[in-house]
């Protein structure tokens, strides 16, 4: 059976996988530990699900641990998440005490691994305080920020910065997210995995079966937003856009959301969305479990246009997924969507429900443009946003940190 890298080489070419092998050579046997807050649901878990086995295949001793906590801990980290994205919401000292206590408890549980690791990647704010408790660390620590911190609520960032500033480096998805810190601020966009259930090619009959099972009609265009039910994703705004379109063009709207275990607000927002949608038979609100990857894949492939009308966005991996499936994307003009969608090239960036409605009507009237945009869309992802590029940049960073190189890193041996 082919190994993972060989399978990726068939999609991205040998040159990319050769780079990866070369970068991994000096890292063979190195202990690399990732820590985040959920094993399933959300882009971070999806990326780690594949990055960790890939690193192992390259001879790196990679491991992944998940922080656990009570309901109040996730309330606190959700507030932190929202505040870092700009919500002016103070966090009570009681909640912060739970945050610190949960970090300490989890640190104690993972202490040996954390202290022994050559490189520790801490993902997002949830386990960020680990470093504070780790007095006996041997390796380098990197904080990976997956969210849009371009305009954080200062008191919350100030609190968190005290924990972040001791790291050896941090990683940000976009330059506009990077906050001034004295360590190197690496810029690494996230990625999608073309071999995962969510992105692998699917036969047409499989796509049709899924659409049928949800009662989605084949003879009427489908506009889809796949996102957790979160106000920053503006699901209500998407329904407003749909209502502005359906007066002119027959169309179906699908809002599909998976639950993430670290998002306590999801069910409340879902109820609001259902109430706002009413009984319209052409609005399909799908509550999909966090592991319904093939279903989401089929839904995206069976859609005519992907919408991601976020008001705030980290990188926007659902946009990347839509682009990979050759679909034009209507995206909010925020965060990483600005890096992925260019007007008239592979979709449109919009600022209002009206803007989204206008662009969708335009596309539905110019089907030939949709096809050309779809081709551009897939190529953009192939060139820039697949997991192989992501892995290469992570390995580069690790090599740079371990070899202490500033501007130039030379790997002077052949690939095989």
């Amino acid at each position, binding site marked *: 059976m082919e190994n993972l890298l060989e399978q990726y080489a068939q999609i991205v070419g040998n040159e990319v996988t050769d780079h990866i092998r070369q970068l991994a050579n000096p890292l063979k046997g190195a202990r690399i530990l990732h820590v985040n807050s959920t094993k399933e649901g959300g882009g971070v878990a999806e990326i780690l699900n594949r990055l960790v086995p890939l690193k192992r295949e390259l001879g790196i001793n990679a491991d992944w641990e998940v922080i656990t906590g009570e309901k109040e801990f996730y309330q606190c980290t959700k507030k932190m998440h929202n505040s870092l994205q700009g919500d002016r919401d103070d966090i009570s000292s009681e909640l912060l005490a739970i945050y610190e206590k949960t970090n300490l408890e989890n640190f104690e549980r993972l202490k040996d691994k954390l202290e022994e690791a050559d490189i520790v990647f801490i993902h997002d704010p949830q386990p960020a305080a680990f470093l504070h408790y780790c007095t006996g660390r041997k390796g380098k620590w990197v904080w990976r920020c997956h969210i849009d911190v371009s305009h954080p609520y200062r008191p919350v960032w100030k609190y968190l910065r005290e924990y972040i500033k001791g790291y050896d480096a941090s990683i940000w998805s976009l330059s506009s997210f990077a906050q001034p810190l004295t360590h190197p601020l690496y810029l690494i966009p996230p990625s999608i995995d073309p071999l995962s259930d969510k992105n692998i090619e699917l036969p047409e009959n499989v796509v049709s079966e899924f659409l049928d099972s949800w009662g989605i009609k084949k003879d009427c265009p489908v506009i889809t937003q796949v996102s957790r039910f979160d106000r920053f994703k503006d699901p209500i705004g998407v329904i407003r856009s749909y209502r502005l379109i359906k007066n002119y063009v027959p169309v179906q709207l699908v809002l599909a959301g998976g639950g993430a275990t670290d998002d306590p607000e999801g069910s409340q927002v879902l109820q609001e969305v259902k109430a706002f949608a009413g009984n319209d038979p052409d609005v399909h609100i799908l509550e999909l479990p966090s592991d319904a990857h093939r279903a989401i894949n089929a839904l995206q492939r069976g859609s005519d246009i992907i919408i991601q009308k976020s008001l705030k966005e980290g990188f926007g991996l659902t946009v990347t997924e839509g682009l990979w499936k050759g679909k034009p994307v209507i995206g909010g003009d925020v965060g990483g969507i600005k890096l992925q969608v260019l007007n008239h090239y592979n979709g449109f960036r919009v600022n209002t429900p009206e803007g989204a409605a206008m662009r969708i009507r335009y596309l539905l009237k110019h089907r030939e443009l949709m096809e050309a945009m779809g081709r551009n869309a897939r190529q953009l992802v192939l060139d820039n946003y697949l997991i192989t590029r992501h892995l290469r940049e992570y390995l580069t960073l690790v090599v740079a940190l371990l070899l202490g190189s500033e501007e130039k890193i*030379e790997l002077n041996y052949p690939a095989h």
Partner: protein
Amino acid sequence: MTNQTFRILDCALIPIATGEKAQNLREFRDLLKKIHSGSIYYHFWGGLLHPHFDDPEFQNDFAVWASRDLHDPKLAEQLSIIDPNIYKNVEDLRNEVVEIIEERLSESDHVPWVKAGHEFDFIRSQIVIFDTGISYSDPEELIVSIPGMSLGSIFFHFIDARRRTQESKNDFSVWLKGFGDRYSGLVEDLDAIDPYFTTLNELRQEIHRVYSNSLKKASNGKSA
């Protein structure tokens, strides 16, 4: 790389935010004057190896910002036409950019600003160099490999070479000069290629075309 062996290397750039952001043209000028020289390099050349949409309208990140965010088409045009190849070093290039900004500031009765979220983020990069394990000792064999070279190899040998080699030339020319006058025509043709206003893919095609034509001329009796 010795005079007689051309070892094909490859590279990737990994961007690092400097944390410096400019929200208006005056801040932009002030930061330009003191920013890490690697940042000037990155904003002129890094785009070739990084996510971008096809056919960028402007050739460097400074011009793109002036156009898209500052909404100053005149400044964008003046910045876009800067050819980084003609400057001896990054400091001379930096001075030219600063000069153009100074000029534009002196023409305006106000300092142009951008909206929040549209600041210019200064970025620098680390370069990782890979050894492909492939090397050539005969210039006539090397030609076969050019169409299959990675874009990173083209960047490394044709663009990054300009800041590494003594005469700010590409690696191919430096190597070919080691053969005396035998390939002087080819060296001249390669040196005449403008690596700006193009994509790495187009550049690879042009290097291959120039190389093939020059060797054909040589086989017809003229010096390559």
